[in-house]
């Protein structure tokens, strides 16, 4: 079941096409990565999904119904890249205010605030003004005010920027927990290592266009170069390595990176080492990182005629 279906979405600005015919689906309960370089149209896309902008054309289905900002906005939690809180307001009051604006009753909101403030260990800040907090602390408050109303769709734009590793881990854990309890999460970033760690599915956009989308595992398979890494106990001599089953890409101390030839199998590689009595310590497939796929695809787009 898909929580969100985006069909042929378009949004033009005066000078350029910010979102140009983008379609994708987000399955319920998944963690969905929205990737792209700066200026790719990620924020515009997110602003349309949050009802801040209306698309010029195309359709967004939310829960299998046409997106209705008035109603669906209540089930969305959005943490924009440009973080913002009222600086002069007290932390507790501010969270309560934002929760009430999402339609929560005061009593319910207070209980939830207490729960989350306890959980993230920030109870002592309740009566502090936002401007007295450090940037990382403000991030925590911002995160809580985004998820306080238990949204079915959580949109996080660069959620880890400005967080120290300990707090980043804490938030990451919360994201996983929310996902397990059924929250669908859109995670927008250009930090690829986080994407591989966190996301189930991704969409890659550049210059307003979709470049590719799908499951992270599948994409890595689709873009694999058939590279393998093999560890050896003793270094063989050069003649022993001659074969048509693979070519050597890189030779290191007690390890080779090899590319499988077309028509050969991984067992052919292993058989070769065994036949030559080279002791194998490990054997591992090298899959491309999303980062590599990303750079590859973006560069491909820059020089489309090559």
């Amino acid at each position, binding site marked *: 079941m898909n929580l969100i279906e985006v069909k042929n979405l378009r949004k033009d600005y005066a000078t350029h096409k910010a979102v140009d015919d983008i379609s994708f689906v987000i399955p319920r309960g998944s963690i969905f990565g929205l990737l792209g370089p700066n200026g790719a149209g990620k924020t515009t896309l997110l602003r349309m999904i949050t009802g*801040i902008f209306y698309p010029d054309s195309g359709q967004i289905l939310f829960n299998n119904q046409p997106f209705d900002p008035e109603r669906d906005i209540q089930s969305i939690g*959005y943490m*924009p890249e440009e973080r*913002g*809180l*009222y600086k002069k*307001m007290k932390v507790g009051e501010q969270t309560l205010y934002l929760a009430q*604006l*999402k339609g929560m009753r005061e009593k319910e909101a207070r209980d939830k605030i207490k729960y989350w403030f306890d959980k993230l260990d920030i109870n002592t800040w309740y009566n502090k003004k936002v401007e007295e907090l450090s940037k990382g602390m403000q991030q925590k408050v*911002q995160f809580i005010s985004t998820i306080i109303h238990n949204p079915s769709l959580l949109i996080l734009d660069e959620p880890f920027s400005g967080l120290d590793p300990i707090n980043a881990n804490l938030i990451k854990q919360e994201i996983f927990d929310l996902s397990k309890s059924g929250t669908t999460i859109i995670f927008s970033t250009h930090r690829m290592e986080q994407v591989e760690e966190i996301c189930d599915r991704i969409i890659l956009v550049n210059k307003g266009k979709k470049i590719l989308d799908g499951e992270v595992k599948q994409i890595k398979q689709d873009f694999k170069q058939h590279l393998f890494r093999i560890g050896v106990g003793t270094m063989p001599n050069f003649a022993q390595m001659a074969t048509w089953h693979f070519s050597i890409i890189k030779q290191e101390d007690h390890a080779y990176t090899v590319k499988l030839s077309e028509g050969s199998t991984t067992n052919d590689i292993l058989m070769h080492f065994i036949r030559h009595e080279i002791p194998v310590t490990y054997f591992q497939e090298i899959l491309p990182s999303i980062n590599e796929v990303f750079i590859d695809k973006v560069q491909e787009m820059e020089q489309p005629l090559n």
Partner: protein
Amino acid sequence: MNKILLIIKREFLTRVRKRSFLVVTLLIPVFFAGLLIIPILIATSSNEDKRIAVIDDSHLFLGRFPDSKGTYYKYLTNIKVDTFKYEQYGYSGLLYIPDLDIKRPSGITYYSSGQPGIGVESNITKHVNDIIEEKRLENAGIDREKLSAAKSDITIDFKSGADGKKGNSAVAYGVGYASGFIIYIILMFFGMAVMRGVMEEKVSRIAEVMISSVKPFQLMMGKIIGIAGVGLLQFLIWVALILSLKLILPLFFSAETLHAATQGGGMMQNGGNAAAIEAIEKVRYVIGSINWTLIISCFIFYFLGGYLFYSALFAAVGSLVNEDPTDVQSLTFPITLPIIIGLMIMISTVQNPDSRLAFWGSIIPFTSPMVMMARLPYGVPGTVPYWQLALSMVLLVVGFLGMTWMAGKIYRTGILMYGKKITWKEAIKWIGKKN
């Protein structure tokens, strides 16, 4: 709807809870009261007791000057005025009355080293005149009682306009000028407050978070209405302060003035009080000559209408400003300009409420809140026919709805535009655009 109430509540409470709100609300009336009271205090009383030497060669005034709080008269005999050094004997002044021809009295002189003060001057003049008057009546054989009974004290009602409502142009001038000017201050002061609020939201980047929960229009209107609430509260506090000031004020003045103010006609024989009573009568007459229900309800209408008309525009400006505060000047100019023009038309209107300029100024919504308030005290429907008032009000409401709609369009685009300098030209294009 519930959301807009939440926004109004926050906008209202964060401002009212600030210490500066209390300070401004209390200090402004204290400041104005100070401007009014201090000169009176200086003029009417001084800390030292005044001892005044009286040399009366006419022998008419012996013992006739009543001592009052802080002022004492000492009657000296057998002393020559030319040689008497009153300062050396501790007198603050010397009143010399030569031998008088009661028909043509002259040469009464008061000597003092510094300014004698309004209180002393008027007291002495009053008493001298009263006593001479009495002496003349006596000489002419007229009974004081009979004269009092025959004295006429009629106030004439000057009526103007078709229905014969009371009118008084000096009063109309004052009331018109004051209410027009107050509206000008309100438009500027609270308009700027709206603008600063929007800027704060944009610069602190809370705007995008807010707009993912509420419509931009709700956010804008919530702020505008919340700040209007702050203005109304401040206004009410000032009204309450003025009313309580009326009770406190007498404490600052001498017993005589207090008596005059509280006991009215019962103290006729004392000259100083007669003047005070006369003043009170005048005030009563002035107050009676204005249709206060109309003026106050129109004031509230034009205050709210004008505020709503301009504050949406100020909100739009706030949404256009980026981090660079120098933008504010150039962006606010097109909005403050019509307000200042309105003020100038208002100043000319109070002198000439029937002019063509006054008519158009009071009809066009850009200036009508100020200019109409300047015309209204001259009389409805005398100076301002009902149709003009109705047209002006309708146009103001239509104008404010239109302005809010346009400003809302600019606001919702501007509030999410970061890092780019925006001009009015660009912003006006956004009005036609759908988001």
